[in-house]
């Protein structure tokens, strides 16, 4: 009687120890894998301006960058501001009209840029949806303080997403996992009157 109780207790202890070892192993494996992935992570490709970049939802061609004194729709900027303007071509690669282009561009060597405004060059007006398979020339404007010094070459990261036919929550199709797919070095040409 006593003997069997002891052996039972031993068995329970063994089970716990084995489960603990298994847990530790799993943890160590996952940590090792993530360290390995970070170390061998692929370098983000450096792409020259004017070359198309496939960012999943969008085909992006960054053409040029400049500093202007008015927005593309012809409005004057508020006093003490300048407009960092990028010229690009955007094409919607998805199966439906979309305006989810705001997170596609990331300025890397500019501290705390404000949210940019997108303009459709064809209309000289604000950009709303882009229709699938219809590339359009677009201008993106960041309004910055006029006193802010800008780098000679602006590093712009293009953020791409991946299509998932079924997401984990609703089993609905969507675009997920934003990550940098390319980096473009854009020389900034300074428009007239940009440095008052």
């Amino acid at each position, binding site marked *: 009687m006593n003997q069997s109780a002891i052996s039972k207790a031993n068995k329970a202890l063994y089970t716990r120890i084995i489960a603990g070892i298994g847990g530790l192993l799993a943890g160590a494996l996952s940590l090792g894998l993530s360290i390995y992935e970070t170390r061998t992570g692929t370098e983000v490709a450096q792409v020259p301006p004017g070359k198309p970049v496939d960012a999943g939802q969008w085909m992006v061609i960054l053409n040029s960058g400049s500093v202007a004194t008015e927005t593309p729709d012809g409005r004057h900027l508020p006093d003490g501001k300048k407009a960092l303007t990028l010229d690009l071509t955007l094409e919607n690669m998805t*199966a*439906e*009209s979309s305006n989810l282009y705001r997170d596609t561009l990331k300025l890397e060597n500019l501290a705390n840029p404000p949210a940019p405004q997108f303009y*459709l060059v*064809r*209309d000289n*007006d604000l950009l*709303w*949806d882009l*229709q*699938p*398979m*219809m*590339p*359009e020339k677009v201008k993106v404007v960041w309004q910055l303080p006029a006193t802010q010094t800008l780098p000679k070459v602006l590093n712009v990261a293009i953020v791409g997403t991946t299509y998932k036919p*079924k997401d984990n*929550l*609703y*089993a*609905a199709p969507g675009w997920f996992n934003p990550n940098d797919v390319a980096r473009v070095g854009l020389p900034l040409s300074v428009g007239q009157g940009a440095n008052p």
Partner: protein
Amino acid sequence: MIRLLLSLLLVGMTALLLAFLQSTTPSYAVLTGPIETSGPQKDTVSSKTFSVKVAKLLRAKTIAFTSYGKPVERQTEGAWLIVSVELQSKYDTMTIQAAAIEGASGRSYRQTHRADGAPRLLSSKDLQPGLPTTGIFIFELPEDETSNMALVLSRQPSPQLDSEIRVKLDGETVETRDRVEIGNNGV
């Protein structure tokens, strides 16, 4: 030994059965998706909450209209498609916020914002129950998508458990013009 084999077999069978049930369960998106009604262009297509009758289809390269007293002209690389329809709500005052054209490739083209402010746009009109309301939807799409289209209407974009009407459009009836002036009295 036999007991062990039997229990293994039972576990395997259960796993198979569960996998089958899981793979055949409709997803949440499907279960809560739109309630669809479809019909041809020549008929009035009715859902539980509203009905639609397509009156006219017009394709153009340029559209022009007056927005807040200012003349506006919009060009496109593809084509403008102007769909003139009559809508009727059945029970309550509603708006049709979501209109899209499903093109020949299956891609979905939402009504354009580039023509916001044009007269007679249905997205800015209230439908009162029992009163037929006429107006237009304007779409921008590539030329080759216009050969085989369907008009998809619903109260809200991506409706959940709400009516969605799909009208199969007849490519033969599309009238092509170079330039369309959208006025207050129709196109």
